[in-house]
């Protein structure tokens, strides 16, 4: 008799129901402290031939968090659909794993498939959480990422971040004739495609808060211009008409506005404009280069860099431009700030000889340097505020690459891009 637990099914693409179970529970300590790497088994999922690839994506996602040592799917015993919810815990204990991700795949009457995902505490011999995901056949990767997010959230106590995308500038060609194209991919490197053709130099693409649009800078008519791009349709338009040098664009958290820099007569200031068009509103007016603005997640404040004091430092102001105050006072210069979606940290590029990625509190204290490259710059936050992506440029003529690093510390991990890359922007959680 087939016994299946009734699943709370999340229909991808139809709803944005939160993974409620994961949010309320404290981190689960399995087989050791949360800081050591958890040995977690991810065997092939039964029920469909895609079950091996699903398990591979889950294992790869879990490895990327730095929290897990995934085993499998190769080399692990298989199990049946019926055993997904009721595994042989003693066998897994004997295999030396602390946790197990199991599940199954079954067709649905509407032509889609259900991917069921179970997380088990092998040491304690019990299930921790399960959820089902309804997806079309071509969207199976989304279900795998959602399952990995379920596991990660439950065991870390953090919000999910694996079911996301990255937009960045793909770089090819020699250093003195670099071809740059806006590219988009899943965070594990899959579904990679180019959004621009490489005729114009492009820099700094950034996602809108719902991940449906981008702003980016393209050199059109020999000037940097801010463009607004719709991801689904590929339609784009100039955001700020007129003959101006504009750059450093970012969306406001409500998606209604775009903050950016405009350079004129040797001076660069910060402006904001409605994403649907209209007259820009000026936010800064000091002599000096004010740029790299980034909103706080509540939309009330903006962090930016300015060299008004003599060199690049970080400043915070209210969203209407008032109350501008410096927050960086360590030795060295500070640039390209980005406010964490969790609100509690600001990431930045610190220039003190080498360029390194660091974080500090929004009041400027608690500075912590996260990377150790020669030229690391341009931080972008994962939506859960736990990881920062950036690009690392080597000395000499080689290409820059994207890296991700945890705010807890540890080595930066190179992102799987097909060619060189810079200026990454991490999407919000996919719907």
């Amino acid at each position: 008799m087939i016994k299946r637990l009734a699943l709370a099914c999340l229909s991808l693409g139809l709803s944005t129901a939160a993974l409620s179970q994961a949010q309320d529970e404290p981190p689960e300590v399995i087989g050791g402290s949360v800081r050591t790497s958890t040995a977690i088994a991810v065997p092939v999922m039964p029920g469909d031939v895609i079950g091996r690839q699903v398990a591979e994506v889950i294992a790869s996602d879990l490895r990327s968090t730095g929290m897990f040592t995934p085993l499998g799917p190769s080399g692990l015993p298989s199990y049946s659909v019926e055993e997904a919810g009721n595994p042989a815990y003693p066998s897994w204990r004997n295999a030396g794993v602390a946790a197990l991700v199991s599940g199954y795949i079954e067709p649905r009457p509407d032509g889609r498939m259900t991917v069921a995902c179970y997380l088990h505490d092998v040491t304690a011999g019990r299930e921790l959480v399960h959820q089902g995901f309804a997806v079309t056949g071509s969207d199976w990767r989304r279900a795998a990422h959602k399952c990995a997010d379920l596991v990660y959230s439950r065991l870390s106590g953090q919000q999910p971040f694996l079911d996301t995308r990255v937009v960045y500038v793909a770089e090819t060609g020699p250093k003195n004739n670099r071809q740059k194209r806006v590219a988009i991919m899943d965070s594990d490197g899959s579904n990679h495609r180019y959004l621009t053709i490489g005729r114009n130099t492009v820099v700094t693409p950034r996602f809108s808060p719902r991940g449906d649009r981008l702003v980016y800078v393209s050199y059109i008519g020999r000037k940097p211009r801010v463009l607004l791009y719709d991801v689904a349709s590929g339609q784009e338009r100039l955001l700020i008409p007129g003959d101006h040098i504009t750059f450093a664009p970012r969306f406001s958290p409500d998606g209604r506005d775009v903050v950016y820099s405009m350079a004129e007569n040797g001076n660069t200031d910060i402006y904001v404009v409605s994403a649907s068009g209209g007259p820009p509103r000026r936010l800064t007016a000091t002599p000096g280069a004010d740029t790299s603005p980034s909103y706080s997640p509540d939309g009330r404040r903006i962090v930016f860099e300015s060299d008004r004091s003599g060199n690049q430092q970080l400043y915070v102001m209210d969203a209407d431009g008032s109350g501008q105050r410096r927050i960086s006072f360590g030795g060295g210069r500070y640039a390209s700030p980005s406010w964490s979606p969790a609100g509690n940290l600001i990431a930045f590029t610190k220039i003190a000889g080498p360029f390194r990625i660091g974080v500090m509190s929004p009041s400027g204290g608690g500075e912590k340097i996260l990377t150790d490259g020669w030229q690391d710059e341009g931080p972008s936050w994962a939506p859960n505020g736990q990881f920062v992506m950036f690009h690392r440029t080597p000395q000499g003529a080689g290409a820059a690459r994207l890296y991700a690093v945890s705010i807890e510390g540890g080595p930066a991990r190179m992102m799987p891009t097909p060619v060189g890359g810079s200026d990454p922007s991490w999407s919000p959680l996919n719907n």
Partner: protein
Amino acid sequence: MNRTVLIGMTALALAIGGCAKRTPPPAEVTPPPAAEANPNSTDPNSLEVVELPALQADLVAKAGSDTVYFGTDEYSLDQATQTTLAAQARWMMANPNVRASIEGHCDERGTREYNQALGERRANAVRDYLLSQGVPAARLVTTSWGKERPVATGSNEEAWAQNRRAVTVIIR
């Protein structure tokens, strides 16, 4: 599924200068002058700019250089630069039918967006000097390439010094 929208094609301009001959000079193979850019247009196609390579070469030959250089994080003009720019200004006065795009560049040892601002400072400083030499403002535009277009590829002081520059690009 999704398609990239091509955002326009550059109008190719072939300007063939005619010289005085008994036979009719070669026909100018140029497209009609670009329509005045609509300042409220949101169409990226409306912004394209046409370079003039033959005149660029003439500028270099007559003024000595189309490029001037800067110190680290600087946008001041030293004496050699001022001499070169004075010669560029004289060329501009002798060639009244073209404009110039003054383009600032930076070395790689700055962050991306700050360098976009610094490049504009450099371009602006050069433009101010050319204005002081009598070049009409309407004939000059400025832009910044930040660190996007290095000419020297090394990561050393020599390469960086070559990349900290402003280039006077002759445009229609």
